[in-house]
């Protein structure tokens, strides 16, 4: 639901010399929503985020928060806060002082700012390590401190640039649950840049898929995944086959493709075990690749080898026609 407090990008452009990093994008980030900016490397995600944060000047267009154009304000006055990819914790300050840094800068006295910092450390469950230096923390712990530090300014919008990419897969999954929980509790807008579609799907209320400096598709996570508009989105979101059918490109979910006795003939080119499923890649006579995600029990009941001939079927209703 749109409200007066949304963050809005209006004809936003970013140029670095001749490179156009962000090309005239328009978008409304609903207040209190968790938005993931998704896209391949170099598509302009960070540039967009950094313009919102105020760390990069706006070449053209404007950024409107709460009805007023913030694009000329200094970072600290925008009502946004940023959490950096490598966390950017001040290495010479203790965890508590890191969190209290912005209050210190405002001239808040020590007891008050330490109290405020402690509260936030409590929130991210880091009170017990408040006196450590950042170098003495693990990646996940550092991330929480960075989060606490970003939140201490009571931002309206929290910006996160690939916050999970420095963590190992195990921790990544745990931390993403925490991010989500925190966003729910605080009720503020999170804008989270990532190039992992699983991360975006898991977290986002809304996914914004960028490519080549423009927004290819934006919408609720499920809409994007269920109905990719373009071939790019379909491929990038994963789990989809893009094949030509009757002169049109269509997207077909891999988990909807079944092996049958008749159907589209194909030759198995790879078999990848994925735990609950087996991904069976096969080549059609037309030279297109199709992946079928077969439940492992079904697969092992009738295993296929590379080189074997198979036939694929799917429900017609599952076919989704692509725009481009």
């Amino acid at each position, binding site marked *: 639901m749109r409200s007066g407090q949304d963050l809005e990008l209006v004809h936003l452009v970013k140029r670095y010399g001749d490179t156009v990093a962000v090309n005239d994008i328009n978008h409304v980030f609903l207040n209190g929503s968790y938005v993931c900016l998704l896209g391949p490397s170099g598509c302009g995600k960070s540039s967009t985020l950094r313009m919102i*944060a*105020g*760390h990069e000047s706006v070449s053209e267009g404007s950024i409107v928060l709460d009805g007023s154009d913030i694009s000329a304000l*200094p*970072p*600290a*006055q925008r009502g946004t*806060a*940023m959490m*950096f*990819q*490598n966390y*950017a*914790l*001040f*290495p*010479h300050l203790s965890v508590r002082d890191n969190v209290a*840094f*912005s209050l*210190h*800068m*405002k001239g808040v006295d020590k007891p008050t700012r330490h109290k405020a910092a402690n509260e936030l450390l409590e929130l991210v469950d880091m009170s017990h390590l408040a006196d450590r230096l950042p170098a003495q923390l693990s990646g996940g712990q550092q991330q929480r401190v960075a989060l606490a*530090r*970003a939140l201490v*300014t009571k931002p309206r919008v929290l910006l996160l640039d690939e916050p999970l990419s420095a963590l190992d897969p195990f921790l990544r999954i745990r931390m993403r649950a925490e991010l989500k929980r925190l966003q729910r509790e605080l009720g503020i807008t999170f804008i989270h840049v990532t190039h992992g579609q699983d991360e975006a799907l898991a977290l986002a209320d809304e996914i914004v898929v960028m490519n080549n400096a423009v927004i290819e598709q934006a919408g609720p996570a499920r809409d994007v995944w269920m109905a990719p508009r373009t071939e790019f989105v379909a491929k990038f979101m994963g789990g989809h086959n893009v094949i030509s059918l009757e002169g049109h490109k269509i997207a077909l979910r891999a988990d909807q493709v079944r092996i049958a006795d008749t159907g589209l003939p194909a030759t198995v080119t790879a078999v990848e075990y994925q735990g609950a499923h087996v991904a069976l890649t096969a080549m059609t006579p037309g030279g297109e690749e199709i992946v079928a995600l077969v439940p492992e029990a079904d697969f092992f009941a009738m295993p296929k080898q590379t080189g074997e001939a198979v036939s694929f079927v799917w429900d017609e209703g599952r076919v989704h026609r692509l725009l481009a």
Partner: protein
Amino acid sequence: MAMSRHVSGWLQAAPLTVVLGGFLIAPIIMIVVVSFWGATEYSIYPAFQFDNYSYLFGSAVVWKVFLATFKYALITWVFTLAIGFTVAYFLAFHVRSQAMQTALFLLCTIPFWTSNIIRMISWIPFLGRNGIANSALISWGVVDQPVEWLLYSDFSVILAFVHLYTLFMVVPIFNTMMRIDRSLIEAAVDNGASAFQTLRHVILPLTKPGIMIGTIFVVTLVMGDFITVRFMSGSQKANVGRLISNDIALLQYPSAAATSVVLLITVLMVIGILLRFVNIRKEL
């Protein structure tokens, strides 16, 4: 395995050890030994006497000279640090393109390639009673008498020191600054720090190792100097180095050696203290 590591380490370190052994340790030992010797007009003879030291510690002038040496070191340090830090800060954080940074940095290092002595004496035509500085000041009407203290004074000595050694401050500070993660600055700005607060609370603390290394260079260079003080003060001022070089010139080696021993101990103590604040090997 462990054994061979030590052995090959020793083999590879051997040349360095030999050079330092022969040209650093042996000379130091020699100086210590000779500091107990006696001297005639033209020669030195082995002895074991404390005359040189008792003279050294007994002379008020010597104490004053040590004090002056510290004074030069301290004042020079303050100026080189202030200037060096500012210059490095400008280069590291205000110059945007890396090519420009390198170019400006090289620009600063080029004068370093002209002989120190020549650079030093070229201040003389500039600062003299009828030098460029005074002519300019008079023609601008700032003063009507030549300013005497521009040359052959503590001022000119320190000016020359600052001129010669600021670069030794700029380089390590610049080096440390360049290794500060840029996102830390953005994080500070994001947290509402003003440019000055960022400088004070983030950049300065993180630049400390560079400052320490620069300090080590400047302090030791100034404390060991003997030629700048002589040239720039017209032989009117003295520091410990001059005391030693005068003694050497007059063939009073034992006395020079005794002064040297005291100077060496002083310098090593100062450096020892500074090294407590920085792990040189890590900071490079």
